[in-house]
């Protein structure tokens, strides 16, 4: 314990005890070989998992959703975890990604090309339908471009802002995008509506990949594998970015903006790239989910969804890539499986007669509170933060919490 007790820490023993706790709670130090082995095992497990599941069952459905949420949470982690910009409007990128899929892969533009439709590299049933139909991979690229631009546009007004003002401006953009999605059927131009309003856009094209059978809603395995591939890509990009010049610039900005800028970190570019990259992942997941859920439903794009994704990031451990993966999978399973499917039968088993679905909100909130109180630093804290907790708790805490010197 190299920390020197300062005037602000009245009890010299306290930091040491806290440091030990922080050390005990982190992951054990593993050699790089063990680490690599674990990662390989996890990837293998993830890839082979669907073979042991019913191809149309509820579990694989939940797992696919969870993977899509992992992609989004990893994107948000870049903005909030790496760059330290609290974003409460992440749902905007989900919406924009989903609408990209809706625009370029559904009957939405039904009158285009005199009702004959426009088809780019699509096969199967979609090739016969009117409307614009593009190959999923092209839509994915379009969604990435659209959300990157949107992310940067949303980032622009926040450049001069600090801390929680960024949170409220991003929240505002998220709400504005959500409102436009719901009321967009009132806005027309170029002979088409902006969105379909509350009716939503449905059906949406199924994913259509070269060298693969067309996807169906009966066999969910290919969907799972596509989501898993997206997760792998995003994970790879995340790790490479974190260890890159840009990633270090993000972390430097997060730790101390003034110091980072005076050391030559370009503020505008670095922040905008954080927004753009994070948004792009949200757009990927949005396009995938639109196709997977077969609908672009305007009522999905609510503030609570942003909070849901943010909860995954904070619960997993801000800035910690594996932590965010764990947090996303955990919360997604709690929300989609544990509460509706597992806990629902509990009252009848213990002889009580009431409907637990009414309580699902409350249970979710209760679990959030419990998890956070038990492990406030997240399930798998980021290594850098852990070191800070061990060595510099006074310095960190004076800035970040009020209560630093409180004697427990």
């Amino acid at each position, binding site marked *: 314990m190299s920390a020197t007790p300062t005037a602000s820490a009245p009890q010299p023993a306290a930091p040491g005890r806290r440091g030990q706790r922080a050390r005990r709670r982190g992951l054990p130090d593993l050699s790089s070989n063990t680490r690599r082995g674990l990662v390989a095992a996890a990837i293998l497990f993830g890839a082979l998992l669907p073979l042991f599941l019913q191809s149309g069952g509820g579990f694989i459905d939940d797992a696919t959703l969870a993977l899509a949420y992992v992609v989004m949470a990893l994107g948000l982690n870049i903005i909030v975890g790496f760059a330290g910009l609290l974003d409460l409007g992440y749902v905007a990128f989900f919406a924009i990604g989903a609408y990209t899929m809706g625009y370029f892969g559904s009957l939405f533009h039904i009158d285009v090309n005199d009702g004959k439709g426009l088809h780019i590299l699509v096969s199967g049933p979609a090739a016969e339908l009117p409307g614009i139909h593009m190959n999923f991979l092209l839509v994915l690229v379009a969604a990435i471009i659209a959300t990157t631009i949107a992310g940067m546009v949303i980032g622009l007004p926040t450049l001069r802002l600090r801390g*929680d003002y960024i949170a409220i401006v991003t929240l*505002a953009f998220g709400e504005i995008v959500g409102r436009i999605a719901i009321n967009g059927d009132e806005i027309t131009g170029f002979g088409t509506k902006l969105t379909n309003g509350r009716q939503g856009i449905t059906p949406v094209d199924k994913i259509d990949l070269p060298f693969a059978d067309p996807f169906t809603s009966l066999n969910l395995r290919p969907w799972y594998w596509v989501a898993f591939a997206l997760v792998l890509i995003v994970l790879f990009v995340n790790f490479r970015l974190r260890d890159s010049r840009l990633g270090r610039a993000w972390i430097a900005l997060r730790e101390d903006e003034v110091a980072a800028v005076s050391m030559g970190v370009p503020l505008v570019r670095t922040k905008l790239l954080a927004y753009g990259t994070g948004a792009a992942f949200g757009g990927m997941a949005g396009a995938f989910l639109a196709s997977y859920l077969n609908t672009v439903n305007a009522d999905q794009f609510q503030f609570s969804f942003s909070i849901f994704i943010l909860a995954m990031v904070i619960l997993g451990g801000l800035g910690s890539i594996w932590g965010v993966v764990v947090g996303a999978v955990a919360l997604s399973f709690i929300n989609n499986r544990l509460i509706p499917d597992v806990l629902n039968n509990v009252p009848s088993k213990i002889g009580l007669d009431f409907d637990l679905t009414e309580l699902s*909100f*409350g249970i979710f*909130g209760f679990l959030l509170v419990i998890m956070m*109180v038990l492990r*406030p630093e997240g399930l798998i804290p980021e290594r850098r933060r852990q070191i800070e907790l061990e060595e510099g708790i006074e310095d960190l805490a004076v800035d*970040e919490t009020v*209560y630093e010197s409180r004697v427990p």
Partner: protein
Amino acid sequence: MAAANVPTARPVPLRALRSFLGTYGLILVLLAMPVAFGIADLREEGDLSRLGNNLLDGLSNGSIWALVAIGYTLVYGIVELINFAHGEVFMIGSFVSAGFFGTIGLTAATGAAGLVVGLLLTLVLAMIASGALNVMIERVAYRPLRNAPKLAPLITAVGFSFILQNVGLLWRGGSQQSIVDLIESQQELFSFAGISVTNGDALAVAVTVPLVLAMTAFIAKSRLGKAMRATAQDPDAARLMGINVDTTISATFLIGGMLAGAAGLIYALYQTTVWFFQGFTAGLIAFTAAVMGGIGNLRGAVLGGLIIGFIQQLSDNRIGTQWTPAIVFAYLVLIMVFKPSGLLGEQTREAG
């Protein structure tokens, strides 16, 4: 952006526009809607009574938001936490009031004296219930996380907000419930230059103004208020000066919750409906108001609440209810662009 740092390269008209926007942009943004609608009214109807009515409704709605926003801003000023459960505390205040009307037998037929006494009782009860609830939330969800990373309490706040929403859902069901219209809130009390002042408007202003004045005086004059300001400025120094920071923080949550409870009562009487989801929207709006005025700044919260009330009414009445949230948030973004620390400037530790 780099070009902006080279002043000689800029053409003169653009620079003039820039400095003009920098000075008057905010005022332009704020006045855009009322002035535009005022001109339209003058042209079409020849007087400004419609605009006046909009602004009056905005004033009464805005005073509800102001009461809730003060709670946000107080809590933020002292613990730097966005208390997401605050909107739900407001909702519970509404529910308690609505339930208590029935308990003490207030109906639309109750005489004036009985009504005043009954409503005062309800006000006190709603304030106590919401205040106690807020203190309880602080104890359970925020205090254990005092040494935790900054964002951790945000998640427990969200968790508590969900729990309270669920409580509301179980208490009064999932749909909007209308409650007895005790004060005949849409009844015109008097009219002035074509602007009709309803009972609801009068009640909102009559409850809000004394409460805000009392609370401002309390924070400015009393010992506890002084302790609150000291803790907000520097908790460590405050502790060294012998201030019990824990008690002070609890007191802050108590006051914030009490104001939210009062707002809940006004809302229930004014809108004559209660809904478990009302707190969510109200929380979002009130938080926006707090930020708009400059977070940590009490007068800013009141000003922000009123401005949002005006914007909402104008937009509800002229553009369409479904667009109101988007317009309120668009205003927020514009204000943040022109004044990054809120209208009246923030008062937090970070701001220095």
